């Protein structure tokens, strides 16, 4: 099977999102197994050539840019239709997008309209040597279980967990860029009022280092130690369900099944015992580091490095060491 993979790329304020390059990295790994052509779809109100040609250096054969102001708005049902029009024109056999707030909204809307399956939040891919179909691998809830999923309809669609794949440099001599316009009418009554940008500390899903605090911090004053550590490491602050419910940190920072599922390079769990619902939200992190008083805490089953001890005693020491190191 010679596959044609279309990546539904993301572009925000004129800049391509890192996740687009990550998916291209995943695609590169499958090149020798039957992925022949890889394209990137980019929809935006304003398409700038110098930005949208960038994926051509990361293994894309072609870029399909579609200029339409609707992509900068919140009418997903309309932007989904524009993407569907493009899919029907390009006829890819596989479609991937990042499991971001945008990707997880558009992809299911598109998949249902195309009457095909969609696999959520994948962390691995392969091609079945027997029949050439895409194997989509994702962690299942409940500890260390991986599920492999196949789609019997075409196109085979998947969303990809951010921070899971590395971009890979690669160029193809026959690469090309197409920029088109498509006209749709704006849905009546829709009004995109405002965007309130929050500090960058909010985006735990795309952070390389996440410092997360839980019950062991005891109160909101102690929780500020997490923020201090995070600053020392240029990381983002996360929290367990308890930390959010106690109001020590706001909901968008919650890691776990009822919050966000993340996969940073370093996940530092402080005073978090590791309930299933928390572990499911961070178990695919590259390195897991934990400090907890209870030597039996489940978090240690997943930890690469752990300290059994009182987080309130050890954390200030760590911050001190890091600050001294910075001074030097």
């Amino acid at each position, binding site marked *: 099977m010679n596959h044609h993979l279309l990546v539904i790329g993301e572009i*925000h304020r004129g800049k391509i999102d890192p996740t687009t390059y990550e998916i291209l990295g995943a695609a590169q790994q499958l090149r020798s197994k039957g992925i022949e052509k890889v394209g990137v779809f980019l929809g935006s109100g304003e398409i700038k050539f110098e930005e949208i040609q960038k994926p051509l250096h990361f293994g894309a054969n072609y870029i399909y840019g579609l200029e339409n102001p609707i992509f900068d708005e*919140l*009418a*997903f*049902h309309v932007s989904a239709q524009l993407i569907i029009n493009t899919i029907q024109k390009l006829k890819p056999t596989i479609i991937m997008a990042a499991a971001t*707030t*945008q990707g997880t*909204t558009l992809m*299911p*809307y*598109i*998949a*249902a309209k195309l009457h*095909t*399956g*969609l*696999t959520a939040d994948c962390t691995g891919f392969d091609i079945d040597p027997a029949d050439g179909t895409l194997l989509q691998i994702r962690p*299942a*809830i*409940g*500890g*260390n*279980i991986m*599920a*492999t999923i*196949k789609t*019997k*309809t075409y196109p085979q669609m998947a969303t990809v967990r951010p921070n899971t794949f590395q971009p890979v440099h690669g160029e193809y001599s026959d690469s090309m860029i197409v920029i088109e316009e498509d006209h749709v009418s704006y*849905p009546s*009554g*829709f*009004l995109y*009022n405002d*965007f*309130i940008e929050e500090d960058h500390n909010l*985006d735990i*899903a795309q952070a390389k280092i996440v410092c997360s605090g839980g019950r062991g911090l005891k109160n909101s004053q102690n929780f500020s130690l997490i923020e201090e550590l995070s600053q020392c*490491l240029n990381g983002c602050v996360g929290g367990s*369900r308890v930390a959010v419910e106690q109001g020590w940190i706001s*909901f968008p920072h919650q890691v776990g099944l*009822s*919050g966000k*599922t993340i996969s940073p390079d*370093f996940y530092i769990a402080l005073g978090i015992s590791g309930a*299933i619902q928390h*572990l499911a939200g961070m178990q695919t992190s590259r*390195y*897991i580091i934990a400090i907890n008083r209870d030597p039996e805490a*489940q978090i*240690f*089953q*997943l*930890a*690469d*490095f*752990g300290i*059994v001890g009182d987080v309130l005693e*050890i954390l200030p020491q*760590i911050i001190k*060491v890091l600050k001294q190191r910075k001074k030097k």
Partner: protein
Amino acid sequence: MEMIVLIKQVPEIGEAKIDPETGTLNRKGIPLTINPIDLNALELALQIKENHSGTIRVVTMGPEFAEKALREALALGCDEAFLLTGNEFAASDTYATSYALAQFITFLKPWDIIITGEKAIDGDTGQVGPEVASFLDIPILTYAIHCQMINHSYFLIKRTIETGIQKITLPPPFLITVTKGMNTPRFPTLRGKVAARQREIRKFNAQSLHLLPDSIGFSGSPTRVVKIENYKIDRKGVILKDLDPTLMANKFVEFLIERGAL
């Protein structure tokens, strides 16, 4: 405001533990409950009803015992409860689930808005909401953290995305998926619980909805789980214990430096 709330019954995994031998979830004896984020969806509907009047119809698809989840929703103050049930629906993936729900919701017309949780904590896909909206061909807004009815023709919605919060106003019809941060779900009153026991749960199967067997359940599902494997977490964990806190703090920082965090 005519509202439909979609809920799912899930195992209470907050209570579950991983079996250290097998590394898998020990499901034995875990009670079933309404998906926690669906409680936020119900709460939103109840608040709209209280502040502006309206009706709430709650819908789920599942086995017979999912009736319990619907009764909990009735106890909170929902007006009517509907259960899509039958073996024909078993082993549905998100596509087949959404198709069946959308067909049923069409059957329930007229309605203004559909509310559901951002995802179910057992499947963790978050796909059913947007897929239902797609089948119904209505606008979708996901990850809502605030939803306010301005007047009968407009809603103000705030949604959380990676970098901040977006604000939008739009008219019904639409489907909205809510996050846990939106509100604090109420508990049922004793009187509500007692009253809910007497209420009728209206049950429908595939036949009564004229759904073709090939379009639902396992045969209507385009995706297949072909393999489930336990992977060994190959974390050669170094766990420090009973050492001087300063020493452990230094080891902690060393670990970060060696792996390139600093």
